[in-house]
């Protein structure tokens, strides 16, 4: 059995760890609130842009644009959203596993896909496996502004318009609730699944100067907005995942402290009993 001092030491160190995980849990809870709010702020913009894109797609039959057309796939782009730091439970690993499987399944050589990563964990994961990462961005703030990721978003869209990639998938954790996040795969480009139904199709617009030029401006913006939306969603998931992970770490620490205190008390009691037995034995020997 471990000595009293050893157990005491373990209890103390577990308590300190618990303080840290508890603090991290609370920090993540606060960040989650902010992230949810950011995601809410983004909703009007994304709804509106979707509405306009859908009404143009529905209204003008002859509206065509390279970004709307599916072409033969020679190279696929994968945009992977992960976090910069770990300690977030299965947040990163589940996304990365999914992407990794997809790539292994569909591609036989590195020339057939392009990886774009957001977050350090994703970048390091692919680099370690000798998979070329085309573009990456790390150290995205917890409350990202659109301006922070505009460059990488527009570069990614440009990869498609320049013909370097022929389709683009985005992988991220979709925020369902504080307890559940779902790994989501979304096809961003080409924009073939624009939702045409709904109120949008009822209004027809005048286009100034014409549809093509508007699509020229609008579609890249739309694609960028999808990427930004996924990032916001991913950030909310990240904080939620970290909060849950830290909560269970705190709970586990509690359990551990309980168990350790029990064995500490037992060991202490055993020592006392032994001392008494020795004294009683010594006194009996004197008589």
């Amino acid at each position: 059995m471990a000595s009293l001092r050893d157990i005491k030491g373990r209890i103390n160190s577990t308590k300190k760890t618990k303080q840290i995980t508890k603090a991290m849990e609370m920090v993540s809870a606060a960040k989650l609130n902010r992230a949810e709010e950011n995601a809410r702020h983004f909703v009007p913009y994304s709804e509106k842009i979707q509405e306009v894109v859908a009404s143009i797609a529905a209204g003008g039959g002859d509206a065509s644009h390279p970004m709307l057309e599916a072409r033969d796939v020679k190279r696929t782009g994968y945009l992977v959203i992960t976090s910069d730091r770990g300690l977030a439970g299965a947040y990163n690993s589940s996304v990365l596993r999914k992407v990794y499987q997809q790539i292994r399944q569909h591609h036989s050589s590195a020339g057939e896909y392009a990886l774009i990563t957001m977050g350090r964990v994703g970048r390091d994961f692919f680099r370690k496996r000798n998979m070329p990462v085309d573009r990456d961005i790390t150290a995205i703030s917890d409350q990202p502004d659109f301006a922070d990721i505009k460059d990488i978003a527009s570069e990614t869209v440009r990869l498609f318009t320049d013909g370097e990639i022929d389709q683009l998938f985005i992988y991220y954790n979709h925020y369902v609730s504080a307890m559940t996040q779902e790994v989501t795969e979304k096809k961003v480009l080409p924009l073939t699944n624009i939702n045409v139904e709904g109120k949008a199709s009822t209004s027809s617009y005048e286009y100034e100067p014409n549809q093509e030029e508007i699509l020229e401006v609008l579609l890249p913006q739309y694609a960028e907005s999808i990427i930004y939306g996924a990032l916001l969603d991913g950030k909310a998931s990240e904080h939620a995942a970290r909060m849950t992970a830290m909560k269970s770490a705190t709970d586990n620490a509690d359990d551990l402290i309980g168990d350790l205190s029990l064995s500490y008390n037992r060991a202490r009691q055993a020592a006392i009993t032994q001392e008494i037995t020795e004294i009683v034995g010594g006194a009996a020997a004197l008589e």
Partner: protein
Amino acid sequence: MKTLTVSVVTPDGPVLEDAYQMVSCKAESGELGILPGHIPMVAPLTISAVRLKGEGSSERIAVSGGFLEVRPDKVTILAQSAEKPSDIDVDRARKAKERAEQRMAEKQADIDFRRAEHALKRAINRLDVKDNNF
């Protein structure tokens, strides 16, 4: 007097929503003035100032990367960034301007040049809106 509801939204959230009498802005194809009852229209905007005229007051907003959606009683401006004069960070804009000018002077690859040019336009636009000189 009739009014139209103007809302300006960016990916970072709504910037403004209020009733105004007239919107004037600079679209890719030229200056546009919109009064209530305009036919539905969509037009891309240049990096410029949008002026909103209300009763006795007017508002200026620096937009970049935006477009305008018009309905008879509602105008929506969707922009990648949109700022009221009070939200503009002059120091940042000035620094961005210097940086862009420097990059343009160095004259590197085509694409960098275009990006620098854009950055310069955005910075100048912000400063103009802030100082109200048109």
